[in-house]
């Protein structure tokens, strides 16, 4: 096997396949999270299948082992950039078949994880339609509709009863407000946020804002429930938002000061794992880090956030950490704050421009 072929097996490479770089990255991250959280061991033995014939596919143990084996082989292929669409389809089918084969295993978060992989397999690399945008819109539409239709959500009864199961101090906090004001308020925040996300996702120019609101909303839920990720939901939804990002069409030009230790360390760390040339590092006499992304220039904290935003190794590390210790997930807010700060002070392209994917040239080598 020659060097180029070997290089193509690098899990940190995300370009040069038939999938968009950020979609491939998102799929790898979610597969990684499934592995690190140990959810592969939780794949079901068929039991009370929703689709009857699945209950006759081998013995329960054989069925379970088969799902595990397919997942592992497909995940390996995905990480090594081989037959990536087929790998995603298989990963998706593992979860879809799993939920259909066991009423015990039936959970929305698992079904959504499966659908994510299936949509990743179907996503058109050159299409301006983002399946993920519409998938999220349908999800939030269903979620908002159901909540708005339930009187217990509208008057706060649900939140008042539900939240103490996760946050034992909640009744005390709620008692600081009159009646069910806090519970009602939290419920309406959830309903309005989900309804707003439907609109933001359906209007292309608002998709960057949808990404920000969506990741913030779900991270807020994890924070409020002290680390409960709602099964795979936080991981799968965050991966979906990664798949919605508008990926740079040219290398990110980063101007850094070689006299500043933080700049040098950051550059060394990122460049060490930049196998595809996503960044061009230019040593200059600058006071603050500068990052130029497709015509927009960011400085300081905003520039640092942008460097991380397009950095596969940063995502991989964060995915492993969050999967291992969900209590770390609220740190996502720091990243969102840095992105928001950078967005408001940047120069160049008007804010909240359309994020319809332009299908521009791939970055880096093939293989």
């Amino acid at each position, binding site marked *: 096997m020659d060097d180029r072929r070997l290089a193509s097996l690098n899990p940190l490479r995300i370009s040069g396949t038939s999938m968009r770089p950020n979609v491939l990255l998102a799929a790898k991250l979610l597969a990684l999270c499934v592995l690190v959280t140990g959810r592969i061991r939780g794949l079901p033995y068929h039991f009370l299948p929703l689709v009857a014939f699945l209950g006759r596919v081998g013995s329960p143990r054989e069925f379970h082992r088969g799902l595990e084996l397919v997942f592992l082989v497909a995940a390996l292929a995905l990480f090594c950039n081989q037959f990536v669409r087929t790998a995603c389809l298989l990963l998706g089918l593992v979860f879809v078949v799993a939920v259909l084969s066991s009423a015990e295993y039936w959970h929305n978060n698992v079904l959504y994880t499966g659908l994510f992989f299936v949509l990743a397999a*179907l996503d058109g690399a050159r*299409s301006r339609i983002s399946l993920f945008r519409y*998938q999220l819109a349908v999800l939030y539409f269903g979620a908002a509709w159901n909540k708005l239709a339930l009187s217990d959500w509208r008057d706060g009864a649900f939140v*008042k009863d539900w939240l103490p199961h996760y946050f034992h101090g909640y009744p005390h906090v709620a008692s600081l407000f009159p009646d069910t004001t806090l519970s009602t308020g939290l419920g309406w925040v959830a309903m309005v946020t989900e309804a707003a996300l439907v609109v933001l996702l359906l209007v292309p120019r608002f998709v960057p804002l949808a990404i920000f609101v969506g990741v913030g909303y779900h991270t807020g839920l994890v924070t409020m429930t002290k680390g409960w990720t709602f099964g795979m939901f936080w991981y799968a939804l965050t991966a979906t938002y990664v798949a919605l990002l508008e990926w740079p069409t040219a290398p990110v030009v980063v101007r850094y000061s070689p006299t500043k230790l933080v700049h040098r360390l950051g550059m060394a760390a990122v460049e060490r794992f930049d196998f595809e040339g996503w960044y061009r590092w230019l040593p200059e006499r600058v006071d603050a880090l500068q990052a130029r992304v497709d015509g927009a220039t960011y400085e300081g904290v905003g520039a640092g956030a942008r460097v991380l935003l397009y950095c596969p190794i940063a995502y991989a590390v964060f995915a492993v950490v969050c999967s291992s210790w969900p209590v770390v997930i609220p740190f996502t807010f720091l990243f969102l704050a840095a992105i928001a700060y950078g967005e408001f002070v940047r120069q160049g392209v008007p804010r909240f421009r359309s994020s319809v994917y332009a299908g521009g040239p791939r970055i880096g080598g093939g293989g």
Partner: protein
Amino acid sequence: MLSGALPFDRLRVYAGMALVLAQLGAVVFAHVDVKRGAARYFAWAPNDYSVDYSIRATVNGHLLDAREFGERYRLPERDFYEDPPQRLLHYLRRYESTYGRHDRTSLVVRYRLDGHRPVVWRWSHG
């Protein structure tokens, strides 16, 4: 929007959109058909319910303890459940009409939804 896409690319996107639209249809169905949609299987309505339940199961004259209950139904005998109570009841009925169809079973489910007054559901067969 698909004009720049290869034919196979377009087919994939159409398939994906069909999948998404099917979900939209399922969401609408779950709300429109009050009876069959009550369990909210395909409604994208997870974690919208706060249900504290306990279940007592008597099978062939024997009251199941917690371990036996878990082995039979693969559910805790008492737990916190975040899907519609109708789904829990549907699950138990499905078990009894399939794996448990030859048993004489009596089920008593007590649950509180969103902190309201407890509801008792009884079911038996055989």
